[in-house]
């Protein structure tokens, strides 16, 4: 049973523990004052914290002892271009990419680790993050010319799904740049994802897979072909490992949001945290709710037990909702520093904390 949550915040990495009485409490802030853009509790034990230091760049730290000690590892980085001599080369070098944020980390088998970044670089490590290889094939796809940032200056990779049946089969989701598949560990990529709909482009482009904005994609552990997506303008699900997507209709109070979690024991059950599209980005009518479907996205229950009913301005970012590996606990954290936990599938929520820094991501420790 999971008894610990790692919470990545604007002011550090917070550990939250379940006490003997069942109450969850904040225990320790690591990296005090430093923005933590993502956290990974690796199933084999190590913790990874991605820092977004602003002035000094994106950094990566790893702990082998549950946060007692941290080791800084080399962060993923784009290769440096050759020195420029001509004016054209100088301009090209000025435009050459540099990692601004490590946006997600996904484990592969053994010591394999994947990193998705802003700008949308995909990086792979064979040694637990001690060295990185840039997967240039995704950067070189012609469709990248149309990618754009959703809330950031550049497009970014926020979801990397490794197929548990074949670790060479990857799914990568980009805001804003669609869903990409690799069948050869990132050597080559194909754009996939028929059925998504983009409401923010001219109508003739709305079905184009290359211009979709998946906000977050998760895979069902029970049925690996079953995927769930919170998209910029809808909730979508796939039964064929992302090749085709079906939109859930008439989702109230809103089909906009960022986060999604799927029940590890039931591939048809998933949770979302809706918000007002698009300029506002707060809970609809100031009422913080969680949407749950238990029938594969046909219908949704709107759950609010224990959550604020009015004057709530909490937005839940794409990595800030998680479910424990056994499916017993759900937790989410907000931009307003609220942290809530449920042990009954989202029917009722307990406030763990109301005064945390803005929360970027959280993960149950397996």
């Amino acid at each position, binding site marked *: 049973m999971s008894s610990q949550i790692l919470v990545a915040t*604007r002011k550090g990495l917070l550990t939250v523990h379940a006490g003997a009485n069942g109450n969850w409490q904040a225990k320790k802030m690591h990296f005090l004052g430093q923005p933590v853009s993502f956290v990974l509790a690796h199933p084999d034990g190590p913790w990874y914290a991605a820092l977004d*230091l602003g002035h*000094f*760049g994106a950094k990566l730290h790893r702990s082998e002892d549950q946060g007692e000690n941290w080791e*800084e590892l080399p*962060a993923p980085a*784009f290769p440096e271009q050759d020195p420029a001599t001509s004016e054209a080369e100088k301009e090209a070098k000025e435009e*050459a990419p540099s990692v601004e944020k490590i946006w997600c980390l996904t484990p592969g088998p053994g010591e394999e680790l994947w990193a998705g970044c802003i700008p949308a670089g995909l990086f792979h490590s064979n040694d637990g993050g001690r060295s990185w290889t840039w997967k240039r094939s995704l950067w070189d796809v012609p469709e990248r010319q149309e990618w754009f940032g959703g809330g950031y200056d550049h497009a970014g990779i926020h979801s990397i799904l490794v197929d548990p049946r074949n670790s060479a089969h990857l799914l990568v989701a980009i805001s804003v740049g669609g869903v990409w598949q690799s069948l050869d560990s990132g050597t080559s990529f194909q754009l996939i994802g028929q059925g998504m709909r983009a409401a923010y482009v001219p109508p003739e482009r709305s079905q184009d897979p290359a211009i979709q904005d998946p906000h977050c994609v998760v895979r069902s552990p029970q049925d690996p072909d079953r995927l769930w997506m919170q998209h910029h303008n809808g909730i979508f699900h796939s039964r064929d490992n992302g090749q085709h997507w079906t939109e859930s209709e008439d989702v109230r109070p809103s089909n906009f949001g960022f986060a999604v979690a799927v029940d590890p024991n039931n591939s048809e059950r998933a949770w979302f945290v809706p918000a007002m599209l698009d300029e506002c980005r707060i809970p609809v009518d100031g009422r913080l709710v969680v949407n749950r479907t238990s029938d594969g996205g046909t219908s949704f229950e709107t759950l609010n037990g224990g959550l604020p009913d009015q004057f709530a301005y909490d937005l839940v970012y794409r990595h800030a909702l998680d479910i424990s590996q056994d499916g017993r606990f759900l937790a989410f954290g907000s931009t307003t520093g609220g942290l809530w936990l449920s042990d009954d599938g989202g029917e009722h929520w307990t406030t763990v904390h109301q005064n945390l820094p803005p929360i970027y991501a959280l993960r149950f420790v397996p």
Partner: protein
Amino acid sequence: MPKVHFTPHLLRHLDCENRQVEGDTIGACLENAFRGQEQLRAYILDDQGRVRRHVMIFHNGRSMQNRNLLSQSVTETDELFVMQALSGG
């Protein structure tokens, strides 16, 4: 030899004492300052070897903010200050 001073804000992340280094340009001085401490490079320069956008270099008290910053000449008695731009939040 030119002297390189680092903002004390870096000390919370890594050891970076001020140091005297060989070098006839700002870039050469920084490269020599990074020698033996490669981790420091990624705090000052980005992936492309450019000075990070929110890092400022002062050369003998003057802030240097142009694209040719790293190729600017320095002399034996010059001082470089590697500072962070001010920002809040």
